């Protein structure tokens, strides 16, 4: 990777949801989904965001694309503050940043033909004439490895992997610069997962895309990402280049996460760090470092003081008192 410009950055981004009293529920409080996250995504890289369910990785993605407004903090796209965008600037941003979701079954309207589905973003943004749009749909289908005549079919006629290709074609329709892929291969079978991962890599090389790749699957992220960020309970606990992160994870949570991933080799040696307990609720995060109740290395300071992300080496950041 050559040195490149930041395409998307955020500073002290925070997103809270309030739990309102509704119906029989008597819960009240605040869900701290994203807490004080600062990061920079470079143009042309694949930025992997990993963490377990409920850690806030999807929420962070949505706030980064301004699909939700942050509670505090700022997001910058190509150096400009996203919150200050007016309607026309925002519409332009919507063309440049696209999203791919996990479930290709619910991402496609079952009553519309594939051609219509892929053409929709082009129509919304009034790109080209009708004929030009139709040509582009056929070209996009070809790019993702489908046939032009598939435009006449409905989503139910396709398998999961093919549907994910359709979703990708639609995301590419407006020539985006940035794609947020939220668990794009998690719903797919192993043999199909590899096809879609290869397609995403080819497309990145061909169109110079930047991906923010959200996944809970560490082996998939290692395969595709250039840099990796780990989230726990709404906070970033570690950020670093892929090779260094996988060779030598620094944060105790990263270490446990990597050692917990099953190894598809029965002869491999296993030095498993088995964490006790569950992920605490983001409504009621523990005091101090939110990982301390499960951390094998905790000290007194971890109970009272939350660590901040510190620079270990020029490219590696970790949030832990013990490092």
């Amino acid at each position: 990777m050559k040195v490149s410009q930041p395409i998307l950055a955020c500073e002290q981004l925070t997103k809270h949801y309030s739990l309102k009293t509704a119906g029989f529920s008597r819960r009240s409080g605040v869900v701290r989904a994203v807490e004080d996250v600062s990061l920079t995504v470079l143009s042309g890289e694949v930025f992997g965001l990993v963490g377990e369910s409920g850690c806030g990785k999807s929420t962070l993605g949505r706030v980064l694309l301004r699909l939700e407004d942050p509670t505090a903090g700022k997001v910058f796209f190509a150096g400009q503050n996203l919150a200050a965008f007016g309607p026309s600037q925002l519409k332009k941003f919507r063309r440049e940043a696209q999203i791919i979701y996990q479930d290709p079954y619910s991402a496609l309207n079952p009553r519309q033909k594939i051609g219509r589905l892929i053409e929709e973003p082009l129509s919304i943004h009034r790109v080209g004439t009708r004929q030009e749009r139709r040509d582009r749909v056929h070209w996009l289908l070809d790019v993702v490895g489908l046939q032009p005549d598939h435009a006449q079919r409905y989503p139910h006629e396709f398998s999961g992997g093919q549907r994910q290709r359709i979703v990708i074609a639609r995301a590419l329709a407006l020539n985006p610069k940035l794609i947020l892929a939220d668990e794009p291969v998690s719903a797919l079978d192993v043999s199909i997962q590899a096809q879609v991962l290869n397609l995403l890599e080819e497309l990145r090389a061909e169109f110079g895309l930047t991906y923010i790749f959200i996944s809970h699957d560490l082996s998939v992220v290692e395969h595709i990402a250039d840099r990796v960020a780990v989230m726990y309970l709404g906070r970033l606990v570690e950020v670093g280049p892929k090779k260094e992160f996988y060779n030598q994870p620094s944060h105790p949570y990263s270490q446990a996460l990597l050692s917990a991933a099953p190894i598809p080799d029965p002869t491999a040696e296993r030095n498993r760090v088995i964490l006790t307990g569950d992920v605490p609720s983001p409504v009621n995060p523990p005091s101090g470092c939110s990982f301390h109740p499960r951390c094998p290395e905790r000290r007194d300071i971890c109970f009272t003081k939350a660590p901040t992300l510190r620079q270990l080496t020029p490219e590696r950041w970790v949030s832990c008192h013990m490092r």
Partner: protein
Amino acid sequence: MREIILDIKGLTTQFQTKRGVVTAVDGIDLTLDRGETLGIVGESGCGKSVTALSILGLLPKPAGKIAAGQIFFDGRDLVTLREAEIRHIRGNDISMIFQEPMTSLNPVYTVGFQVQEAIRKHRHMNKRESRAEAIKMLGLVGIPEPEARIDDYPHQMSGGMRQRVMIAMALSCHPQIMIADEPTTALDVTIQAQILDLIGRLKEEIGMSVMLITHDLGVVAEISQRVMVMYAGKVVESADVKELFANPAHPYTVSLFKSLPKIGGRDGALKAIPGVVPSLLNLPKGCAFHERCFKTQSRCQQAPPWREITPSHMVRCWEPVEQ
């Protein structure tokens, strides 16, 4: 000494659908030894879950039925048993845990009630004894403070806790066989590591056999001794776990390994398997994999033989891969 506890011969399970009869499981043979963990691996629709449901007489009726074959357990053929007899075996001698701990528990009863239900039914204990036994089981599967948590409702527990409750239920009658259908797929990796560790430990303590159904080759490598690979309703390869991972012989198995992103694995494109899993309504002639196979030949249009590589390593292929 090997002692065969479950012996399945030529099991064929069919479903009546609107578009015709589907053979989900096509003449599989399987043996399970006492104290062994057998992994059954395959992608969605390969028939691995239907095999489990067939053993327990849980096929959806009237659409699904066992069309041929025998399932010998304890000297009796489960296929010929009446519903009342199989109900006695189910839960008592053979129990099952499912993928979705969220939907497998009844939300309107406490978890204690649900664990006790099985104990009362099969072990003829009174209320007090069964409650004490349920607390013991919940403690055994690693639920902290079981005396307090026993009166919780399922929604008050996390996914990992619910899966533990399911395992406690499945183990409460000291079954000889536990069938685990994707027991950790819905869980996060750190919780998955806890549950796999738990299943392995309990298996040793109680001395039961485990049939582990999964799509995840990593999970199989972690805890099974023997593996069967299924594709489109048939067993295509069967071997000891070390042998299978070291010398996979069926091209499908070989391709699955190659398509898998591995932690610490090589860079470059993944070797994806071309095409899609064929529909069971419209299977290719002969070997169901031949259209996607890298070693395909004209004779693959005919049903391939079940042949021996070593006495414990069998493969269904005309052209097995030699190492």
